[in-house]
């Protein structure tokens, strides 16, 4: 990081380089898939400028991954590239940006602005920069934000060589849209209200535009699937009640698609045991129930695994100077008992290095469950990142 005065205002430049090795415990089962090791390199830049008055700022966050196995996972994206004006009551931002809505841990249901970068990971926490004009106002009665999104971003999908892929290669060149076959034929809109009243945090959201989740349809080429991004309207609500060591969380949506109107929800709690060791470590236990009422017919709805599932997890924060923490959890399908799980550990070494270990595993997967295509894809990832 370097701070220097230049052309007035404050410049801040940073970067990070991550080296990653993902190791699969079993060989691939689909044609073309590699067997065991997936080395990868992550590069991220971070350039910020803020005017002396603090009213204007400019942010550029380019990101690239170079993957040793899957050429679809090798990709570049501008995670953020925007200019912003902030006044006392109003904020206006134009460019590519990332937005997060919601409160739940196991599923991000109301969070709809950004497309997921699923070649990064399947946990829906990596997002593509979304081109937008965002206008926001903060008042006594809460924050209201409007979004106009003129450009659509297609979801990223692993290639033929890649692991953690569907039984079929999803080809974005074959993508179709409800708003006409043009990717940017229409403009997407969203509105978000967010506030807190005592122990309650409340969010309400509205979205109209192309669904970020495509249906996956057979194409004229055998073994190749065509994504179809339907035109949808969605209402969402997210609530959190915070009392003592309890966090109670709920997210719900109603989505109208050309074929159906359905509801989905995720809700549960996080409870923390503070100071469980002499050094002050905290243990949080989490439980969330996931429901999704969409059709199971792939011709009608985008596939989801979170239709009737229970997430149980734990988070251990050591509260040491290296910020060491551990996270573990399992999602169980209550209909057939299929399980997917994760274990994550992270710590800092010195001031500039972070070491992370992540494992995803699939156990007891029923042949009829969507997860069955991942049943041999249990893996562990070691990542070492140097920050500059």
């Amino acid at each position: 990081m370097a701070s220097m005065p230049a052309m007035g205002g404050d410049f801040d430049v940073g970067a990070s380089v991550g080296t990653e090795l993902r190791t699969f415990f079993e060989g691939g089962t689909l044609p073309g898939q590699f067997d065991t090791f997936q080395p990868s390199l992550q590069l991220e830049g971070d350039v910020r400028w803020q005017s002396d008055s603090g009213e204007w700022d400019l942010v550029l966050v380019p990101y690239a991954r170079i993957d040793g196995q899957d050429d679809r996972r090798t990709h570049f994206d501008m995670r953020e590239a925007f200019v912003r004006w902030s006044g006392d009551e109003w904020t206006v931002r134009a460019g590519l940006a990332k937005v997060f809505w919601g409160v739940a841990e196991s599923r991000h249901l109301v969070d709809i602005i950004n497309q997921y970068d699923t070649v990064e990971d399947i946990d829906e926490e990596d997002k593509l920069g979304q081109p937008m004009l965002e206008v926001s106002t903060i008042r006594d009665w809460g924050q209201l934000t409007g979004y106009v999104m003129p450009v659509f971003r297609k979801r990223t999908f692993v290639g033929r060589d890649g692991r953690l892929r569907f039984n079929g290669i999803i080809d974005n060149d074959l993508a179709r849209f409800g708003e006409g076959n043009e990717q940017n034929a229409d403009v997407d809109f969203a509105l978000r209200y967010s506030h807190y009243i005592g122990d309650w945090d409340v969010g309400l959201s509205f979205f109209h535009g192309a669904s970020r989740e495509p249906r996956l349809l057979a194409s004229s080429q055998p073994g190749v699937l065509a994504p179809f991004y339907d035109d949808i309207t969605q209402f969402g609500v997210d609530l959190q009640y915070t009392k003592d060591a309890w966090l109670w969380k709920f997210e719900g949506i109603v989505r109208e698609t050309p074929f159906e109107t359905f509801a989905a929800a995720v809700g549960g709690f996080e409870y923390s045991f503070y100071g469980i060791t002499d050094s002050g470590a905290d243990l949080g236990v989490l439980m969330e129930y996931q429901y999704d009422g969409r059709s199971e017919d792939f011709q009608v709805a985008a596939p989801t695994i979170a239709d009737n599932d229970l997430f149980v997890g734990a988070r251990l924060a050591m509260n040491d100077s290296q910020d060491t923490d551990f996270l573990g959890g399992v999602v169980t399908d209550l209909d057939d008992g299929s399980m997917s799980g994760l274990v994550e550990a992270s710590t800092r070494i010195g001031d500039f290095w972070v070491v992370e270990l992540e494992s995803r595993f699939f156990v007891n997967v029923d042949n009829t469950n969507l997860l069955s295509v991942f049943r041999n894809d249990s893996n562990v990832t070691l990542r070492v990142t140097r920050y500059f």
Partner: protein
Amino acid sequence: MFSNRLNNFTKTVALAALIGTGLSTAALSQSAEEKGFEIAARSDRTDTGFESSEVTAVMTLTNAAGRTTTRELYFKTLERENEDVGDKSLTVFETPRDVQGTALLSHAKILEADDQWLYLPALKRVKRISSANKSGPFVGSEFAFEDFTSTELNKYEYRYSGEDTFDGMTVDVVERTPRYENSGYVRQVSLIDQDVFQVRKIDFYDRKNSLLKTLTLSDYREYEGGVWRAHLLTMENHQTGKSTSIAYSDYAFKTGLADNDFVKGVLRRIR
């Protein structure tokens, strides 16, 4: 034996009553609790009217073996003069680089739980967090959350326990007991100087009433309006041998911050 003690007690009461009638009632009616509160209040109120402040700081964590790590952060504070509500504050990390932009927004209350939100810049996520964790370490340091967030006058009961000298100053010794829930301390012993009425040192006693930590506040500087600020805080943990110091740069006061700068919506603008 019992009757003897009772007898002595009767005598003492009688004697006190006798002396009491001969002295000014005002001087005697001030209990150790009242005097303790008065000294603490005088100290607390020396900075009334600062309105808002902004300051950057370097936190240095030293482990038992003497190895150090540092973090740079900044604080923004909005004063609320009503002593029945707490101040609002925003703490933002600049380093280490992997947590740059991580921020904690806190609306302090007096006896109820504070309202707190954490901002995680990698995910752009604002998360309401529980403030029940008063006694947990703040970012791995020897400071507990409550050491930062529980500086309000009415969060404690006070008791004056005499005069002492510290670092060449005559100081009042005031013991304070947390009134709020989930504190890691059974009591704290503070030394407040008699010249400019600032807290110079605090000994923290854990729930077993053994000495846990000592906070030394030094490099006091006076700002416009008679507002004093310590520029070096050193917290020493006697039980682990670790310590943490916070070195503050110059404070800026009355920077024009308002309630709107301390709502959760502003967290998303940080990074």
